[in-house]
C-alpha cells in the first residue's frame, strides 16, 4: 500500500519534471526571440522613418547632422570579411586535411590542442597583437597609417581558423573509412584520395565551416576596432582605414543618445539579419551532410 502510494508520487513527480524540463529547454529559443524583438524593436522604427534605402546605400554617416548612411560600414564589413576568408580558408582547410589525413598520431596530439587554444584567446589580445606587431609592420612595408583593411583582414583570418579547422576536421572524420580504403586500393595517392574522394564527400561540412567562419569574421568587434582605423568612408585601397558594422556600434554606443542610438541599433539590425542568414545557410548545409550520410 505504502509503496504503491510512493510509486504514484514518483510518477507524478516525473510528469512535473518533464514539463519543467520542456520549459527550460525553450530557454535558448526564448532568448533568441527576445534578442530579436529588442534589437529590431529599437532599430527598425528609425529605418522606416528615414527609409531603408537611405540607410543601406547612403554614404554619409554624420549622426549629428542626422545623416545615417551605413553603406561605408556595409562595404567595410564585406571587404574585411572577404580578406579574412582569403587568408583563413586555405590555412584552415590545409590544417584540417593535415590533421585528419597526413599527421601521425603524435603530431596530431600537438597540433589539435594548439588550435583549440587559438579559439580561447580573447579577441582583445588578437587586436592588441595587431596593434603592436602587424600595424607597424604594414606601415613600414607599404607606408600609410598601417591601420587598414589589410591589418583587419589578417587578424580576422587568424581568428576564424579554429572555427574552420574544428568543423572541417569533424566532417572529414565523418567520411566512412571504406571511402578512403577503396580509393587507396584503386591505386590513388593520398593527395588524390583527399582531393577526389574525401573533400567531395565532406563537402557540406566544409562549406558549413566556411560559412560559420564568415559569421565570426563579420561579428568580431574588439579586434577589428583596434586595427582597422575606423574611418567611416568606403576604403579605396587595402591600406586605407575601414569601419565595419560592428565597430560602428561599439565605437559610438558609449555616448550615443536619441536618434543616434537608434541608428546604432539599426546597424545592429542589419548585422543581425546578415548573421541569421549565414547561420541558417550553414545549418541547412550541415544537416544535409548528416542526411546523406545515413
Amino acid at each position, binding site marked *: 500500500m505504502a509503496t504503491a502510494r510512493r510509486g504514484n508520487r*514518483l*510518477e507524478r*513527480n*516525473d510528469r512535473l519534471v518533464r514539463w*519543467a524540463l*520542456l520549459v*527550460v*529547454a*525553450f*530557454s*535558448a*529559443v526564448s*532568448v*533568441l526571440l*527576445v*534578442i530579436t524583438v529588442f534589437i529590431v524593436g529599437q532599430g527598425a522604427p528609425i529605418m522606416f522613418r528615414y527609409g531603408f534605402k537611405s540607410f543601406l546605400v547612403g554614404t554619409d554617416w554624420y549622426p549629428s547632422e542626422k545623416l545615417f548612411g551605413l553603406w561605408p560600414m556595409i562595404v567595410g564589413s564585406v571587404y574585411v570579411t572577404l580578406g579574412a576568408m582569403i587568408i583563413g580558408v586555405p*590555412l*584552415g582547410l*590545409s590544417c584540417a586535411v*593535415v590533421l585528419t589525413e*597526413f599527421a601521425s598520431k603524435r603530431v596530431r596530439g600537438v*597540433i589539435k*590542442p*594548439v*588550435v*583549440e*587554444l587559438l579559439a*580561447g*584567446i*580573447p*579577441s*582583445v*589580445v588578437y587586436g*592588441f*597583437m595587431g*596593434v603592436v606587431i602587424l600595424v607597424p609592420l604594414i606601415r613600414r612595408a607599404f607606408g600609410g597609417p598601417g591601420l587598414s583593411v589589410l591589418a583587419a583582414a589578417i587578424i580576422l583570418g*587568424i581568428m576564424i*581558423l579554429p572555427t574552420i*579547422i574544428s568543423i572541417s576536421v569533424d566532417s572529414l572524420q565523418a567520411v566512412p573509412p571504406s571511402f578512403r580504403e577503396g580509393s587507396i586500393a584503386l591505386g*590513388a*595517392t*593520398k*593527395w*588524390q584520395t*583527399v582531393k577526389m574522394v574525401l573533400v567531395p564527400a565532406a563537402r557540406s561540412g566544409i562549406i558549413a565551416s566556411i560559412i560559420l567562419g564568415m559569421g565570426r569574421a*563579420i*561579428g568580431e*568587434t*574588439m579586434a577589428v*576596432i*583596434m586595427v582597422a582605423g575606423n574611418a567611416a568612408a568606403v576604403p579605396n585601397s587595402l591600406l586605407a582605414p575601414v569601419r565595419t558594422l560592428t565597430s560602428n556600434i*561599439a565605437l559610438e*554606443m558609449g555616448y550615443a543618445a536619441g536618434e543616434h542610438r537608434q541608428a546604432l*541599433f539599426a546597424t*545592429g539590425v542589419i*548585422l*543581425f539579419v546578415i548573421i541569421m542568414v*549565414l547561420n541558417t545557410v*550553414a*545549418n541547412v548545409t550541415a544537416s544535409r551532410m548528416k542526411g546523406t550520410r545515413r
Partner: protein
Amino acid sequence: MRRIDPRAEQAVAGAVLWTFTALTVAVLVFIILFVLRKGLPALSWSFLTRNPVDMGKAGGIFSTIVGTLVLTAGALVVATPLGVGTAIYLTEYTWGGPVTRVIRFGAECLAGIPSIIFGLFGFILFVTKLKFGWSILSGSLTLAFMILPTIIRTSEEAIKSVPPVYRTVSFSLGSTKWQTVTRVVVPSALPGIVTGIILSIGRSIGETAAVIFTAGSALRLPTSLFSSTRTMSVHFYILAREGLSMPNAYGTAAILVIAILGVNLLTYYLMNRFIKKYS
C-alpha cells in the same frame, strides 16, 4: 592535357599543406610567447593584489580580477541549470520531431550571434528597460545568454555518450526516468558537462564587447549586484586603446592568456579522462 605525375603532385600538395599547418601553429605559439615574454616581467604579487591607481596607469589589477570572477560566476549560476536542463530534455525526454528541431536551431543560432549584439541587447533590456544600470547583474545575465549554447552543446554530447546500458539497468531496477537521469546519467556525464562549463568560463573571461556595455567599466571594488565593475578584458582593452600604460597592459594580457591556458589544459585533461572512460 599533360598529366602531372601523381607522386610529384602528392609531394607538392603535401609540402603546401604542411607549410600552411606549420604557419598556423607558428602564429599561435608566437602570440602566446610574445604576450608572456612582455607581460611576465610586469607581474608581481602586488600587481595582482593592488587596485588600479590613476585609471590603471599605476597600481595593480585586483578589482578587475574580482570583477571578472564575480561576473563569470553570476553567468554560470544562471546558464548552467538552463543549459544542462535543455541538454537533458533533448537527450533523455525527446526523440527528434519538430520541437527538438526548433530548440536545436535556436541554440545554434544563438551560438552564432556576435557578442556586440548581446551587448546591445543587454544594454537596452537590463541596463535601461529593467533599470539595473551598468551592473554586475546586467553583465552576468548578458554573459549567461551568451554562454548558454556552449553549455547546451557540450552537455548534450556528454549525456549522449553515456552508454544506453546504464539507463536500461537503472530502469530494470525499478527507478523512474528522473531517478535514472539524476542518479545515473548526469553523474556519468559529469566530466563532460564540467568541460563545457570550463569552456564557458574561458569565453566569459575573454569577452569584452558584451560586457563593456552592460557591466560598465568602474574601477572600484564592487559592493553589490548593482554596482558597475570592470573585467580584465575590458581593463586591458582600455589600457591598450588609450595607451595608458603599456607595462600594465602587457601584464593584464599575460594574466588573461595564462587564465585561458589554464582553462584549456583543464578542459583537455577532463576530456581525455572522459573519453577514456567510455571507449
